[in-house]
């Protein structure tokens, strides 16, 4: 099990966010999510420049088993995507909180992040 880093916030649908020092936000999926999905074989990432609203379907992650939607935890503009995942989707399994990030977003409103779950709250969701 990967330890949940303390600076992350979570959506109940298993996405994590991290507010970077420059005010941008990095988004990925949780260790619990990658474990549920199993071996990840394909990731479809959004186009840079796309404007997202919180709750929008922003990416697709496919394991051997099934395809799953990834929902945007915050509103804003996509400014960078993790192209490593296009050829090495298994990175999401290996390193969900670090090398396996999905995209970076310039948030419209950082207050949206306060509504997300702390690592402790998210852990409780996972145990349900």
């Amino acid at each position, binding site marked *: 099990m990967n330890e949940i880093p303390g600076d992350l916030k979570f959506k109940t649908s298993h996405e994590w966010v991290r507010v970077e020092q420059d005010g941008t936000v990095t988004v990925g999926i949780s260790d619990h999510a990658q474990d549920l999905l*199993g*071996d990840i*074989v*394909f990731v*479809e990432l959004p186009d840079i420049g796309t404007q997202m609203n919180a709750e929008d379907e922003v990416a*697709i992650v*496919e394991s*051997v*088993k*099934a*395809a799953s939607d990834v929902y945007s935890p915050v509103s804003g503009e996509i400014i960078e995507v993790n192209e490593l995942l*296009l050829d090495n989707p298994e990175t999401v399994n290996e390193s969900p909180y670090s090398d396996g990030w999905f995209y970076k977003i310039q948030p419209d409103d950082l207050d949206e992040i306060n509504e997300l779950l702390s690592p402790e709250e998210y852990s409780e969701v996972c145990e349900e």
Partner: protein
Amino acid sequence: MNKTTLFEQHKNLGAKMVDFGGWSMPINYGSQINEHKVVRSDVGIFDVSHMSIFDLSGSEQEEFLKYLLPNDVNKIKNSGRALYSPLLNNDGGILDDLIVYNLGTHYRIISNCATRSQNHDWFLKQSKNYDVKIKLMSDLSIVAIQGPNSENILDKIGIYNLNTMSDFDVKIYNSSMIAKTGYTGEEGFEVVIDNSDVESFWMDLLEAGASPIGLGARDTLRLEAGLNLYGSDMDINNNPYESNLAWTIDLNDKNRDFIGKIALEDIKKDTYKELKGIILRDKGILRSHQLVEHKAGNGEILSGSYSPSFGFSIAFARLDKGHNGEGRVKIRNNEFKVEIVSPPFMKKGKMLI
């Protein structure tokens, strides 16, 4: 939830357990992809004890099976052989698929898990006019040993001389049944063994170096091997001709009557669909229900998955006849070119595409 005798073994091996037709079964023991590759390159063992075993007794077993099944058990009238057949209703719709074994002492049927009680009822109903008894066996487990080293590993634990067995041969060894069958497209065996002996058998195989394999890998292995999954690739609304099973309809014995025979004569003329293999070499994963278009019509993806052996996606689809080997599949907002081929994609370690 039903549990197999090996349930605790799976838990101890760190398996992720899922509900599989009311049975708690291992989907994987860590990585489905690694498990798949182990079976292609070495040897893996599967607990498939959730499947249904029926033992027949009585003086008219052969007559009954000739009537019950479209494939002809006359092919296995000498003991020590097994035969694959679909199970049809009177309309030629597929109720299930199964393997029937001639053990010398009696015949045995192994069929799917989800159809257990339905098949049991069907067998009882159809056997009324025959001197046959059908017993659902619950004191037996099934372990599949699959992969190029399956014979070696069984040799290591003291089960010798399996090299003389051909595909679909079956024999009794210390009261267990050993069949040269499987659901992976590799060399391999399926062993039906008493519940009281299965744990030590399983542990001996692990100790000898076999890897446990979950039902997730079993699914991608059988897809590559071109083997249908009942419920995904065919069901009661499908006939054998549109399910790549024409070869199982044995009409050689003109005097033989079997369930569905009359319906099949019309169906054969009217069938305008076929089950084909689909290959997507681009980035994207074929999944059930995606639409396939080709120059002479369209169709739908049945089983579809990432293929661990090839590194791209493969699928089955039921298509209008008349394709020219090329098609298009729409996945979300993207349209992809696909190849249309005849399954299997892989057999005995050899890539066929």
